[in-house]
């Protein structure tokens, strides 16, 4: 999630009549396109900024994104149980702010490294899910007829497949790894997106401006690229944010079941090893608690951002 740049002089009011005077001098189509994007972005940002929930989510997310970047750069030496010499199951202290696990590895280091994997899995899996979902939804909605019927029956099938069972089967075939987790999440979470996109496409397809473009001689590609996609994109994006949250939760669940990559740390993986290491019975709350809290926070952040985006996209919600 990149925060859009704040452009001074942007008009925060969508219905505002004001146009910066400098625009009168803008001439070439490229400049026009750029000016338009800048204006759209600043309008969007001004609206987004008004949402307290959205801003809170953005701040939490920025924090974890920074942690993940730090994790990429930081050394991973502290994670190898054979190399660490820390005390076992130590409670939090100044040396180990979040204590250590049963091998004497710092929980804080694990949680920091885990942020990387959790976010990575969440993002990659949801990109995959969104791509499949959007493609299926657009083809079904735009082509209609037999395509629609077939794709939607397939989507219904996807909706009712027990993904956990599928995940276990896939993992046993491919072997537990990061790729497995990403594939399982990506391949099972798209049907919701597909349905959403399809319904949106169906309504856009009937709009008079699509008819106008057809009367101008535009073909299907033109229609999808210039009219359907731009009008469906906001819905896809808002939905994508929520899919990320679900993907991160799914990753946690799969890792907890031991289907994750045994050689990399994810928050779900930490919880799994804590559980197997009897953290609950031993009272090692610092081992099992922090990764859980991180998951809750990140999922919450994505959800809050999703809500804020939804409010901007659906003017009806904005009224409330």
């Amino acid at each position, binding site marked *: 999630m990149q925060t859009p740049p704040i452009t001074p002089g942007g008009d925060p009011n969508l219905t505002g009549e004001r146009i910066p005077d400098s625009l009168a001098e803008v001439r070439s189509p490229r400049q026009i396109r750029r000016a338009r994007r800048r204006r759209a972005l600043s309008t969007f940002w001004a609206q987004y900024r008004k949402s307290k929930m959205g801003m809170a989510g953005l701040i939490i997310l920025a924090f974890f994104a920074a942690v993940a970047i730090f994790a990429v750069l930081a050394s991973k030496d502290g994670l190898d149980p054979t190399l660490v010499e820390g005390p076992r199951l130590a409670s939090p202290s100044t040396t180990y702010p979040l204590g250590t696990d049963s091998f004497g590895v710092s929980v804080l280091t694990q949680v920091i490294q885990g942020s990387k994997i959790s976010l990575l899995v969440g993002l990659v899996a949801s990109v995959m899910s969104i791509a499949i979902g959007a493609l299926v939804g657009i083809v079904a909605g735009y082509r209609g007829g037999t395509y629609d019927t077939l794709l939607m029956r397939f989507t219904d099938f996807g909706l009712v497949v027990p993904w956990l069972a599928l995940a276990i089967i896939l993992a046993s075939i491919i072997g537990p790894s990061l790729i497995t987790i990403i594939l399982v999440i990506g391949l099972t979470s798209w049907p919701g997106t597909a349905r959403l996109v399809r319904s949106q496409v169906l309504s856009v397809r009937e709009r008079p401006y699509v008819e106008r473009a057809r*009367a*101008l001689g535009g073909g299907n590609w033109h229609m999808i690229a*210039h009219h359907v996609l731009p009008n469906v994109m906001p819905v896809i994006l808002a939905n994508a944010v929520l899919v990320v949250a679900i993907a991160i939760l799914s990753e946690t669940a799969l890792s907890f079941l031991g289907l994750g990559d045994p050689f990399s740390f994810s928050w779900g993986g930490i919880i799994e090893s804590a559980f197997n290491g009897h953290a609950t019975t031993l009272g090692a709350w610092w081992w099992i608690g922090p990764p859980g809290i991180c998951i809750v926070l990140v999922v919450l952040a994505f959800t809050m951002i999703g809500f804020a985006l939804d409010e901007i996209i659906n003017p009806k919600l904005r009224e409330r």
Partner: protein
Amino acid sequence: MSSPTPRGTKLAKGATILEVEDLHVTFKGRVGLLAGLRGNKGTQSRAVDGVNLQVRKGEVLAIAGESGCGKTTTARAIMGLQPVDAGTIRYEGKPLPRNLKPYLRKVQMVFQDPTGTLNPRQTIYEIIAEGLRIHGIDRGPGGEPEEQLVAQALSRAGLRPPDRFFLRYPHELSGGQRQRVVIAGALVLEPEVIVADEPVSNLDASVRGEILQLLMKLRADLDLTIVIVTHDLGLAWTVADRVAVMYLGRIVEIGPAEDVLLRPLHPYTKALLDVVPEAGGLERPILTGEPPDPTKIPPGCRFHPRCPVVVSGKAAELGIEAACRGEDLGLDEINPGHLSACHASRRLGARAHEAIVEAVAAIGREAGSDPGTDADGSPDGTPPGSSAAT
């Protein structure tokens, strides 16, 4: 005046530029899977049922009628927006090719609802440039860049100074301005024909005249041919050279506007003229019954169940009642250029006008009623064919 491409050989004014021959469009009702297997075809709505029409270069032709008469469907078929069951559309004498793109540069459409016709996420510039981009035109014939072509189109459509509009969004403009944008979007491709579907009916009354004025001026300046679809005969009177009146998917009368609107030869045209609101107009005869239902086209003359000539007994007097009830008929040329599809005019020629006026007067306020219906409604009480778009 410059155009994006050099134009081909020009047709002489008055030559047929666009021709519709025996056009049929049917809307099929949805049939459930089981019903379909049992051979149930569902209700078929014959929205356009044999339309023949020649549009002459440089003229303004109005197609008028009630909703459901097939006028909009005809316009959409001309634009290739409506799959056609049968019939031929010719442009400059040649049937439309499979690839409509070159044709759709020459023939442009202006729609009824300017708000819906403009993509809310596009700027005015992008909307106007869309046609150029679809047709891959990046320079005008004189080498003008795209933004100059867009500016020219905007200022021709009366949006000046054009660059003030480039970055605006449709919602920032008034209804009249939006319709000008739609017109500019059509003009940028230098069309020969503009098909306008109810171009002013969604606009405020005081703005309508201006948009019509603009169309008239463009016709004069750019030699445009305009087909205007309207339910408003007053509008036809102000702008049209010729008027075609449609009823239940057919043209029932066509001719010079003065002839059709002042001395109609078809009783339906007369009925339409009688309901144009004006002072004291409510004392004039009004056809009862709902708009006709294209899923149930009556045998014989399709207007006979509502026809004042039949109901008043005038048809019986003329000895044409059996024909009215049982014999379908096409257009006959009654006066030069003035065609009517009516047994009375076939029998009486131009004197049919007086006969129709007499018949209407004989009935008084309530003209013609569909036998076996409610005071107000189609025979079985279902709303009339809603699938037929107009």
